[in-house]
């Protein structure tokens, strides 16, 4: 609860700071402080175990379990790093930097709701709070037609998917025995599923797939990621996606786990389609930004394995998804931070970067390797967990093989960037980066490597908290 309240309040603070202070860096520092505080209060929530600062009877609408709070930590931590790396670039999007920060904090509020909802109503509101500021952020570069286009597309399709989600919720409600929206009551247990339930389930899958951009409901992603100001793409592709994913997995783990036979094939098909489309389409992209959009789709394909694994006795699915989101977010934020600094967002823009900015190139390489799931990076363990989860179900072996083949394809496009940086000669670009920026990148890269070599550090943390 701390996080929800704090983020909403801080959003208002940012709103006013933007309105009253002409000093842009003040706003920026406020935002950074805010995100740091947000992380702190969330950790306080996490460690205090049920005795948050604010004693509010949520009427069971929100339940703060460690899993959700952990994801919050990941999200807020990512946001902090994101602010540290890219907050200057946020300012440059438009004149209303305070508002942008405010919107981001509102999004974070939505994030904390989607990670702890216990009622479909809260899921709905959480997702909306998550989405509506994003429509704005997508369109925040007002003179930029691409940004306009992205915002419009995002908005229309988002609204459409909201409709689908609501229909799904309605059917689930209709199917529930007690007429309830609480997620522990809408499940049908092991009972045979009624058609109403099945329809509701499918519609929920569709709409949540849309939110996490799983194929074939991913179409908005490339365009929106591409059209948005790059700095917001970074945020959307990481924090928001992670939150949406958590909403997805929580719903399935808490409500539908017993009905797994009803949906596992559907999820498997979605995974296959997502992996296929995400990876294959990324191959031909000329713009790194757009490639990353497709790659984020591909990554979702892997994350979805966690959903398949919710039925397994062990908690690898949850453990894995935290690790995955952390690894993925760190790497993606890092890459975007570097990408923003480049004028040219095509692959050629990276040519010869290793000569000019060896440090940027090296850290970028670590990020890319992590995304590709190469061992010694956190990304490897992320993927490892997902594969492991899927294999533990004992089914869908074909899907696992397919996934690793797709992972091999992913190497193709990630390594194109590495090739450009290291093996090709390029025009020297004027890239100005501060030492702070560099050192932060190094820290992030180092964290990825450390997690890749000693995942136990994080796993210990996870397991000590998750299985209290």
């Amino acid at each position, binding site marked *: 609860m701390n996080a929800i309240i704090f983020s909403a309040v801080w959003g208002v603070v940012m709103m006013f700071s933007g309105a009253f202070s002409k000093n842009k860096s003040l706003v920026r520092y406020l935002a950074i402080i805010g995100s740091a505080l947000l992380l702190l209060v969330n950790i306080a929530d996490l460690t205090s175990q049920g005795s948050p600062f604010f004693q509010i009877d949520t009427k069971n609408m929100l339940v703060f379990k460690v899993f959700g709070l952990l994801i919050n930590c990941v999200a807020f931590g990512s946001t902090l790093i994101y602010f540290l790396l890219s907050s200057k670039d946020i300012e440059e999007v438009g004149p209303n930097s305070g508002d942008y920060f405010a919107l981001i904090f509102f999004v974070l509020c939505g994030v904390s709701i989607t990670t702890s909802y216990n009622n479909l109503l809260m899921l709905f509101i959480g997702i909306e709070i998550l989405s509506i500021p994003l429509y704005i952020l997508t369109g925040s570069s007002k003179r930029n037609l691409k940004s306009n286009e992205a915002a419009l597309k995002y908005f229309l399709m988002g609204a459409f998917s909201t409709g689908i989600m609501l229909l799904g919720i309605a059917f689930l409600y209709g199917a529930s025995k007690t007429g309830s929206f609480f997620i522990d009551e809408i499940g049908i247990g092991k009972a045979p599923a009624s058609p109403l339930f099945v329809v509701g389930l499918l519609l929920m899958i569709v709409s949540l797939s849309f939110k996490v951009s799983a194929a074939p409901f991913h179409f908005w992603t490339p365009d929106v990621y591409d059209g948005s100001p790059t700095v917001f793409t970074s945020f959307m592709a990481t924090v928001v996606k992670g939150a949406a994913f958590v909403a997805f997995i929580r719903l399935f783990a808490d409500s539908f786990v017993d009905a797994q036979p009803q949906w596992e094939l559907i999820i498997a098909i979605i995974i296959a389609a997502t992996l296929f489309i995400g990876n294959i389409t990324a191959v031909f992209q000329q713009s790194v930004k757009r490639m990353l959009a497709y790659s984020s789709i591909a990554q979702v394909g892997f994350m979805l394995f966690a959903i398949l694994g919710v039925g397994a006795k062990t908690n690898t699915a949850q453990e894995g998804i935290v690790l995955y989101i952390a690894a993925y977010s760190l790497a993606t934020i890092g890459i975007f931070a570097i990408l923003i600094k480049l004028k040219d967002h095509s692959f050629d823009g990276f040519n010869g970067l290793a000569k000019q900015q060896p440090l940027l190139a090296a850290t970028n390489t670590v990020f890319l390797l992590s995304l590709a799931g190469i061992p*010694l990076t956190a990304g490897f363990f992320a993927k490892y967990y997902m594969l492991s989860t899927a294999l533990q179900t004992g089914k869908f072996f074909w899907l696992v093989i397919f996934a690793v083949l797709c992972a*091999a394809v992913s190497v*193709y496009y990630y390594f194109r960037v590495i090739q450009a940086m290291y093996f090709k000669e390029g025009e020297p670009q004027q890239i100005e980066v501060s030492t702070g920026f560099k050192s932060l990148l190094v820290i992030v890269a180092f964290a990825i490597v450390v997690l890749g070599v000693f995942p136990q550090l994080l796993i210990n943390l996870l397991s000590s908290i998750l299985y209290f």
Partner: protein
Amino acid sequence: MIPVLLIAIPLLSGLVGFFIKNGDNAKKWSLFISLATLAVSVYGLTLDKASAALHFEAEWIPSLGSKFSVALDGMSQILSLLTAISFPIIFIATYNKEYKTPGKFYALMLLSQAGLIGVFVSVDALLFYFFWELALIPVYFLSSIWGGEKRIQATFKFFIYTFVGSLLMLVGIIYLYAHTADHSFSLQSFYKLKSAISGKDQSWLFWLFFIAFAIKMPIFPFHTWQPDTYEQSPTAVTMVLSGVMVKMGLFGLIRWLAPVIPGGTWLWGDTASALCIIGMIYASLSAIQQDDLKRLVAYSSIAHIGLMCLAVFATTETGLQGVMIQMFNHGINIIALWIVVELIERQLGTRKISELGGLAQKAPSLAILLVIVSLANVALPLTNAFVGEFLMFSGIYTSTATTYNVVFTVTAGISIILSAVYMLNMIQKVFFGNTNALTENAKDIKWNEKAILAVIVIMIVVVGVFPQPALELTKTTVHAILEKMNYK
């Protein structure tokens, strides 16, 4: 502690190496480090097999049941010795070559050495997988940065190829892990699995692993990355690739596939063997056609590796012993061949056989050393390769694991003849005959090159005449593996 040192010395000093700007210092540093590693490795040989210093285990990822667990048994010792010997040889042989950003070059070389040794000593599947990739990535960068004209495509093909393989292997490893009784990645737990896995599962598990290893070795038809990569990589890297790295595939086959999934191995042994044999003949015939020295050696390597793989599937003691010793021999011999190729290319700027000729007049020492190395390559008696090939063939012939043992021996034997054809062709066209405009001004090799080749030649002959110590070294390993392979 020895295995840890073997990994840690090159790993840490490799990381240090990134910061050495001066090329000469980098060279000296890496040469020193590689010699230190060699010393440790040799020291390990002198220890008793049961010695505690040869084993090390530490917690790594307890929640996954994975430990940092490394050990040196006979096979690991012989292969880590090969790795430890190869690197100083490579560094000395290419000492006169200048690289751009040498610090990084040598640092990456040392990293790949660490990865290779790690592969050979780890007895934990996850750790094994880690080192498997750690060995690959530096090599990818080495080849792509310092390689030939078409390096980017060629090495990328190589990378993707091997990456696909290793991912498939990863799936297999996870699957096995999920079925272990104690949820552990340790080799011992894997060994206990065989009855827990149904025949059907063993069947496809076999292919998951085998494809990974087959790509690395490489086995027909997964070999097409190899000639291109060898051709495009800087020769020092090619030496690593062909001398040591291909052994990773064989090693994996012997340690992680055959004894762990004996049912699958038994079921598909004949099919895999057939692939090996096709590959041997195929590669030998292709080698005859090559005009580029590097490609010729590359194809010859495919043929030789095919034989080793074939011998593994024979499941006989002689065969497996042959493979053990031959892994070492092949590494030494092929590195020597590469050194010769490198010397020729550096001096004359070409690797085209058709452009060379008459070098024996200008570089008699080189010619003599090359002839000896080539003879080892065609497994002439009293060279090291003869021992290996003799044992392997004998093992294949006496194999009871297959009913086609005679057919296998005879068809594989044809490659012995063909190997003589292409090696002699090469010797003749490059060294004999009259000089031409290009080779007119060739000079004989420098003392360090001569010395290093001489060292190799001495190793070739010594192992060829006194193979018994090496065979003793791997004896217990071979017994243990055979016992697990013949599970019935």
